[in-house]
Each structure stands twice: as structure tokens, then as C-alpha cells.
């Protein structure tokens, strides 16, 4: 059989790990890695935290910061064909058409195109409105992080809360505007979200919850109740949208990301797999509902799974059934680690099993999340990693066999 030609679109964590796993399993494969950013694959989580802080010291900090973000690779030099600074425009069968007019002949395509920030559909204040997804976004935003500047963060999800915390550390005045009653509410549930709201307020953030942005007027952010906020820097942190436009004619279900099965194959499309933030799959640890999961661990886990699938199918074997990664995510705010396991967002009830939520930020707290009386998630706030690991092992045991939907 001829060596399989595999094109991975998205030169990010998922794309890189997929290329590594493919070449480990299929050394003869001809792998092309395409990325629309000009940078080699890098790590994004620090962009709202210590990397933003380091970049705020000035443009000279860039190279050293990027070197820490850059993902170390097991690939030998030249093992994959790297095409950076060029986007995929469309699929033509299983060939990939690029923005520079070229076309990459492929037998398999792995979609790892990730997300882009959602923007407010409003005009005005364009000279000071930022988003934070890429290294280049972080460079532009960091240049505005000056002590005493007035920042308005729109959206109190994880990115919004992290950049608010970083900006407070750098001495900016920060107002956080969130339409929901609490920050990070969907991910954390009402009790922990309320504790995080108190933590932000105790660090000097003006948190305006239950409020939305109606417009921009010069250097002012106008809220839905008419309040006007003077802003030197505005960050739109309203969540993200999947980059799937190039797959429009693929036949895949693109209703939210790319629907894939437990092998990361997209039903309806020919030899197309999806990995990372855009992959929507059911996790049998919880139920049969396919969901996208925007956690750091997912790109690596789905990328390896996709590589296993391609390697099995290229060598005439059946991919092993079942894919049930234990979700985990973290955030760092005001020097406190929030560490989650499982799916707290699916829970109906929250029980504090260690500590006291009123002490959040000063003493360790562990909260267990349950659905239909069974544990589905766990969050530690400044918790001892050993204690959290014990509860995580208990959660893993409780989720196996799977919880009925």
C-alpha cells in the first residue's frame, strides 16, 4: 500500500500531538501540518495569566515568553511538512484547498482548526477593543496593560476573569461586566461562582453582573441600563466560535463544531476526523449527548485517539471501541488554583466536602458536584493536590460504570 497522505489543519496543541502520534504509529505516513498563524505550535493557557503579565513589561519580552509557550515536540526536524501562515479554505474530496491557492493531496484530513473569539456585533471604540485567543492577541493587549489604566472586561467566563485578575495585579482599574448573575456560573454552579465573585471583589474588581453592553460611545462602554464606563482598554471575552467554515461542503454535521464518533471520525464526510476544541463527541462517563469540551487536556487526548483510528484503518485493523476521557480543567486567579475534574456543569447539586466557601482564596476548599444523586464532578479552590487526587480517584470510581443519562 502507498504511504498514506494525512493533512492536519491547525498547527496547535491538537495538531502537533496528532502529527506525533501518527508518525509513531505509521512511520511511513506523509504528514502535512497547516496553520493559519505564523507561529510554531504553542501553549495558550498562560496568555491570560503569567504570559500576559510578562509581555506587559514591554515588546522586548516577546521572544523569551514565546520560547516558554512553544510546545516541545518529539518530531524529528523535517518529519512533517509544516505550512504556517496559510489557512484552509475548503475541502475538495479529501484534498485541502489553501488560501494561497495551493492544494494538498490527502487521503485523510484531521480538522484541528479550533476556535475564534466571539465579538460583540456593535461598532465604536475599535481602537481599544481587544480579544484574547492567540499569541498575537496577547502581544497587542499586553501593550495596553499599564498601571492606572481603566479596563472594562466584557464577559466573566474563565478568560475574562483571568485577564481581570492579571490586570489587577498590574495595577489597572478593572470593571467586569457579565450578563449572568455570577461569573463562570455555567461551569462552576451558583455556590462556587458566588465565592469567585467575592474573591474578585475583594481584589478590587468592580463586578457588574446581570448587565450587558448596549454600545460604545467614544472611549465609553454603555451598559443596558444607561451606565457609561470610561475605558482605556476593553476586552471582549464572550466565549468562542468553532472555525468550521472550510468544512461547509464536507458532509459533516457542523451544527456546533464537528460531530464525531468515538473514533473521532466525522459521520457523513469522507475520511475526515476532528480533534480538539471543535470535536463534538459523546463521553460515556456522563451520557450519550455529544458536546464540545474547551479544556486544555482534550486536544492531546482526541489527537491521539484520531491517530490511533487512522493507523488502525490504514493497516486493516478495527479501531478499538470506546473513548471516555476524564475531563479536567484549571484556572489561576489571584494566586489561587481552581482545579476541576469531571463535569461540574452537568450537576444539579453542590456539596462542600472540605473547607468553607466563605474562605475562598485564603483556605483550601473542595466541592463535589452531583447529578441524580451520583457524583459527576469535583472542584478544588486552593486545595492540597494530594487531597484533591484522593477525591478524584473516588470520582473516577463513581463514574465507572457510566452514570445513566
Amino acid at each position, binding site marked *: 500500500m502507498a504511504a498514506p497522505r494525512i493533512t492536519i489543519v491547525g498547527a496547535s496543541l491538537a495538531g502537533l*500531538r496528532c502529527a506525533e502520534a501518527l508518525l509513531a504509529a505509521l512511520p511511513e505516513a506523509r504528514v502535512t501540518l497547516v496553520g493559519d498563524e505564523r507561529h510554531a505550535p504553542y*501553549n495558550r*493557557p498562560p496568555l491570560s495569566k503569567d504570559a500576559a503579565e510578562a509581555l506587559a513589561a514591554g515588546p522586548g519580552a516577546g521572544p523569551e515568553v514565546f520560547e516558554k509557550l512553544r*510546545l*516541545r515536540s*518529539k518530531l524529528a526536524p523535517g518529519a512533517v511538512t509544516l505550512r504556517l501562515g496559510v489557512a484552509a479554505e475548503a475541502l475538495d474530496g479529501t484534498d485541502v484547498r489553501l488560501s494561497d491557492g495551493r492544494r494538498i493531496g490527502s487521503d485523510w484530513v484531521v480538522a484541528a482548526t479550533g476556535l475564534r473569539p466571539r465579538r460583540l456585533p456593535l461598532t465604536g471604540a475599535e481602537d481599544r477593543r481587544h480579544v484574547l485567543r492567540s499569541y498575537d492577541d496577547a502581544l497587542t493587549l499586553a501593550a495596553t496593560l499599564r498601571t492606572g489604566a481603566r479596563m472594562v472586561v466584557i464577559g466573566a467566563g474563565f478568560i475574562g476573569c483571568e485577564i481581570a485578575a492579571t490586570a489587577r495585579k498590574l495595577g489597572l482599574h478593572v470593571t467586569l461586566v457579565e450578563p449572568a448573575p455570577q461569573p463562570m456560573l455555567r461551569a462552576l454552579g451558583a455556590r462556587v461562582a458566588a465565592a469567585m465573585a467575592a474573591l474578585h471583589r475583594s481584589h478590587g474588581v468592580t463586578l457588574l453582573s446581570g448587565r450587558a453592553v448596549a454600545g460604545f460611545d467614544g472611549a465609553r462602554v454603555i451598559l443596558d441600563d444607561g451606565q457609561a464606563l470610561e475605558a482605556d482598554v476593553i476586552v471582549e471575552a464572550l466565549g468562542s466560535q468553532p472555525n468550521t467554515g472550510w468544512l461547509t461542503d464536507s458532509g459533516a454535521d457542523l451544527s456546533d463544531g464537528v460531530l464525531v464518533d468515538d473514533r473521532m471520525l466525522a459521520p457523513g464526510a469522507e475520511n475526515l476526523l476532528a480533534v480538539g476544541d471543535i470535536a463534538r463527541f459523546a463521553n460515556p462517563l456522563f451520557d450519550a449527548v455529544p458536546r464540545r469540551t474547551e479544556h*486544555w*487536556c482534550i486536544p*492531546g487526548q482526541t489527537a491521539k485517539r484520531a491517530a490511533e483510528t487512522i493507523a488502525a484503518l490504514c493497516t486493516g485493523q478495527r479501531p478499538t471501541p470506546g473513548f471516555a476521557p*476524564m475531563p*479536567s480543567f*484549571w484556572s*489561576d486567579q489571584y494566586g489561587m*488554583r481552581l*482545579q476541576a475534574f469531571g463535569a461540574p456543569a452537568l450537576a444539579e447539586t453542590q456539596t462542600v466536602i472540605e473547607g468553607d466557601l466563605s474562605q475562598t482564596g485564603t483556605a483550601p476548599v473542595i466541592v463535589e458536584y452531583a447529578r441524580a444523586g451520583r457524583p459527576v464532578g469535583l472542584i478544588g479552590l486552593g486545595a*492540597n*493536590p*494530594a*487531597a*484533591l*487526587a484522593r477525591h*478524584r480517584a473516588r470520582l473516577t470510581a463513581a463514574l465507572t460504570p457510566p452514570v445513566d443519562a
Partner: protein
Amino acid sequence: MKVHVDMSICLLHGQCVIAAPEVFSFDDDGGLVWLAEVDESLAADVEAASDACPEQAIVIG
């Protein structure tokens, strides 16, 4: 194979403890401990732990 964790960049995410529990663990105080020399039979787990480290703190040599 030799395993080292650069504790100047480790932030105790604990992903290595999940990926390779025979090699990495937490002591009672929450500090990370690991086997500095491991059998080749655990190579895949150690590689998985290295890939799972958000800080790229694990060095395999």
C-alpha cells in the same frame, strides 16, 4: 529511562499523577514525588505524562 521534573516550572496540576500513577504521586503535604529511574515497560505512561503536563516540566532522558 531517567525521569526528571523541573520543579522551577511545575505548578502541581497533577496530570502526570493521572497519566502515570506508578511513577508520579503526591506526598501528604501535596508535594510531587516521582521515580527518577523507571523501567522501559513504563515508557508509554511516562511519555503520556510528559505530554499531559501543561507546563512541559517533565524531562525524559
